[in-house]
């Protein structure tokens, strides 16, 4: 990756970014109680004395949440350590207890690494467990906090298990930050711990951004940017914030360490609270929860259950596909993102043409990913075989695949039912001759060496045969007639 710098009036600046990613875990229930962990239910229907913080209620840690947190830690190459929970105290109505239970000085996962697709290693400082907060909606005014008349609170999300993944300040460009979140998201989905949906808030990103003179060693003062709801916001916010800091410093000002809010519509960040309001969370050990010290056997069980990670999946496909290209890399990314790579690998293993398998998986099967994940590789392989042999044209193969995914069956039977009989070669020959006769001018140009006209003639043949002809065979027939 080329170096990213900001050119100011006084020289070149480098940006330093560290990211905190909050990931909601896909457990059935909340972190400390048996209320459902569900998105989009009627407000305040998934609440109980524990997640409402009613007096006398006692939290008990969810075993599955711990397993998912350990799976995430393992996938990020972290060391899993004995850990404990703290109370982070603050007054805000999104937590009815007036504190959030989180891991403070003894996080479950420490010192890992995430390798970007381009090979750059990014340090992971920690990946700890904590509970999510409730959801506040500001009413009156313009719907924003400032000017709101009152707020409404839904505690369905309060107590939902989270893992917060904190990166080292190793990122040096907005694009690297995007690449980090994108790879992290793929890893989280691969562990089965997350659905990776940023738009639904199940993956939330805060960015710590600072700038320094290019080539400098010391870090500048950082600002934490919140409300980054998409990869696009992340990139834009880092671009804006780093430029703001450079301009501030070049004017002789200094950066205040503060939390800033990203406004997607205005395309700018703004200070969320003044320094006097800086929070003092008064962390102290949560007396209602005993320490968490996963025994080695339990960790080993979680590690053994972990499937292949995206990087391993990419390598596996690359080794099957041979020489790569940008188009193939895109196909690989799509197939892995949709979880179709097991299908592709099994189909190729059954002897089907690897490039054709990838193309049909990434383009057509990807339109129906749920059905495609259930597809029998043997059936998929049969379809690819029919297309590779020229029995089905590309258009026909796509139609058969659509039917195969929707209703199942055997590709050959589906082709018969759809009337996709292979065009007999004499029938095809007759159509080609007719097209040539009907378009003498184009034919002359083609014979004269204008290869671009071939597409036109091919299109005519396809229309005449209603897509039944095999494009490759038609092209060959045209070429042989040209002599």
């Amino acid at each position, binding site marked *: 990756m080329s170096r990213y710098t900001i050119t100011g009036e006084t020289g070149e600046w480098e940006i330093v970014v560290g990211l905190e990613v909050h990931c909601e875990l896909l457990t059935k229930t909340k972190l400390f109680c048996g209320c459902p962990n569900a998105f989009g239910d009627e407000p305040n229907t998934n609440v109980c004395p524990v997640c409402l913080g009613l007096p006398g209620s006692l939290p008990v840690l969810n075993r599955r949440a711990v397993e998912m947190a350990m799976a995430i830690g393992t996938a990020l190459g972290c060391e899993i350590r004995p850990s404990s929970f703290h109370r982070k105290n603050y007054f805000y109505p999104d937590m009815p207890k007036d504190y959030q239970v989180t891991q403070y000085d003894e996080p479950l996962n420490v010192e890992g690494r995430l390798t970007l697709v381009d090979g750059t290693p990014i340090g992971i400082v920690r990946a700890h467990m904590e509970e999510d907060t409730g959801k506040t909606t500001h009413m009156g005014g313009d719907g924003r906090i400032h000017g709101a008349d009152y707020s409404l609170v839904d*505690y369905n999300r309060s107590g939902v298990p989270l893992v917060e993944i904190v990166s080292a300040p190793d990122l040096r460009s907005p694009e690297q930050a995007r690449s980090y979140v994108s790879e992290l998201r793929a890893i989280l989905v691969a562990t089965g711990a997350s659905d990776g949906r940023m738009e639904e808030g199940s993956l939330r990103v805060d960015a710590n951004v600072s700038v320094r003179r290019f080539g400098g060693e010391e870090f500048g003062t950082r600002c934490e940017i919140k409300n980054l709801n998409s990869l696009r916001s992340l990139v834009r916010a880092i671009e804006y914030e780093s430029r703001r800091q450079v301009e501030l410093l070049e004017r002789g000002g200094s950066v205040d360490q503060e939390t800033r809010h990203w406004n997607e519509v205005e395309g700018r960040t703004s200070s969320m609270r003044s320094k006097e309001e800086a929070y003092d969370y008064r962390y102290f050990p949560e007396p209602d929860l005993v320490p968490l010290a996963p025994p080695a056997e339990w960790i080993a069980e979680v590690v053994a259950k972990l499937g292949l990670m995206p990087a391993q999946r990419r390598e596996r496909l690359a080794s099957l596909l041979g020489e790569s290209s940008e188009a193939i890399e895109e196909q690989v990314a799509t197939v892995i993102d949709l979880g179709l790579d097991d299908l592709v690998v099994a189909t190729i293993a059954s002897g089907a043409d690897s490039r054709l398998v990838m193309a049909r998986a990434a383009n057509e099967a990807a339109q129906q990913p749920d059905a495609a994940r259930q597809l029998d590789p043997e059936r998929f392989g049969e379809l690819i075989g029919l297309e590779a042999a020229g029995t089905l044209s590309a258009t026909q193969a796509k139609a058969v695949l659509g039917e195969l995914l929707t209703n199942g069956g055997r590709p050959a039977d589906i082709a018969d039912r759809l009337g996709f009989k292979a065009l007999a070669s004499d029938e095809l020959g007759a159509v080609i001759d007719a097209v040539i006769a009907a378009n003498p001018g184009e034919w002359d140009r083609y014979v004269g060496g204008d290869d671009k006209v071939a597409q036109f003639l091919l299109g005519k043949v396809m229309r005449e045969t209603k897509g039944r002809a095999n494009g490759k065979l038609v092209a060959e027939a045209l070429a042989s007639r040209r002599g």
Partner: protein
Amino acid sequence: MNEPLSKDAVAHIARLARLELGEAELSRFAGQLSAVLEHVEAIQRLDTAEVPPTSHPFELVNVLRDDERSACLPREAVLAAAPAAQDGRFRVPRILGEAP
């Protein structure tokens, strides 16, 4: 012995606890809190170099529950306990500033 607690420190603590204290109260509590701190400081005179920190008074670890659903409270009952509710949600006074 450490410095006695300043009135500024007491004001800060009061603010964190959302308590409004007058001048006289700040002085009074500064004295009382300093006395409490002084009392607890006795512990700091002990040599604890060889004593591991106590994360929890119990020796138990890994108290866990299975990821299984249990009953929730009925919403009417939950909201009935709140000073104000609207549209199935808790209604709270205008919030100044963002969530921490």
